[in-house]
């Protein structure tokens, strides 16, 4: 029976870990995307301090999950998000509305891609 239980347990463990990872990444990314949307709205209202603060806090939260994402996601995607975070902070500091809006939009898409790549969807599998 152990020849059944051991591999079945390994498969169940991997499946469980994969599902937990997908849900953890999704749960973390959703509020960051909402925060970045809020930063875009702040910038539209010319509240540059608010926009810069939101981007900074979101980046801090992103950095706190860095090791986890480095282990599970393609490093190219993470580096692209890092670059966009740095650019968004810089545009917010310079108060460049057009560039900031475009950069924040790209960042939201990039973060969603990172989260979406972890989901167990038919689209991803195929």
């Amino acid at each position, binding site marked *: 029976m152990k020849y059944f239980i051991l591999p079945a347990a390994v498969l169940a463990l*991997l499946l469980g870990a994969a599902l937990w990872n997908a849900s953890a990444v999704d749960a973390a990314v959703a509020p960051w995307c909402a925060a970045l949307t809020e930063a875009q709205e702040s910038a539209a209202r010319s509240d540059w301090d608010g926009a810069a603060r939101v981007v900074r806090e979101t980046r801090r939260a992103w950095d706190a999950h860095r090791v986890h994402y480095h282990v599970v996601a*393609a490093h190219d995607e993470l580096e692209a998000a890092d670059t966009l975070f740095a650019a968004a902070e810089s545009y917010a500091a310079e108060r460049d509305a057009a560039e900031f809006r475009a950069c924040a939009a790209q960042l939201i898409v990039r973060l969603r891609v990172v989260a979406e790549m972890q989901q167990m969807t038919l689209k991803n599998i195929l």
Partner: protein
Amino acid sequence: MATAFMRTILLYTILIVGIRVMGKRQIGELEPVELVLMLLISDLAAVPMQDFGIPLLNGAIPIVTLLALSMLLSYFSMRSVRFHRLVCGNPTTLIRDGVIRQDALRRNRFTLDELLDELRAQGVTDLTTVKYAVLETNGQLSVLLYPAEAPLTPRQMGRAVEDDVFLPTVIVNDGRVLRSGLRDMKLDETWLKKVLHARGYRSAREVLLLTVDDAGTVFCVGKEGGR
């Protein structure tokens, strides 16, 4: 992570079905399940090793998944003959009572040249001497000759033969005493010392190989320049 896991299961299944559909002659010496495992694992290990942009987990998860799936398939194959046949296929008789079964050759995509090659590799050049040729599930051909063509055995000659074939157990391997071997043969270090001294060795370190079989026959080879 989830994608790697599910893709591995999907690709493993596709490859096993593919190998089964291709027929036994494509297999070589491995069962379909083992062949697919070997094909996939070697590549999976290489990719994250070379590309540092891919997380190691993306290589490790498919490998662990494959090993677990392979163990599960082995388990179900042991439990159910029907499942084993489904995954590994059945042995196919290509020659029965000296007659080549052409439909079986076609079904397994086994050409006549390949059959003759395999027979020659087993020392058979005359097809009329073959009673049965069976294509095993691992792709190997088992050949059974007509009794008149097979080597004569003592039993066929009505001779009684003494059973003097014993499996030797290694006691000393390159100067190291294998205590498990001593235990298996119900011997001890005192016996070993006696045997070594009788052959002029001071210790096991001077011996390259020492074996003993169930009849108590000792085979001993010293190391070059060891004494």
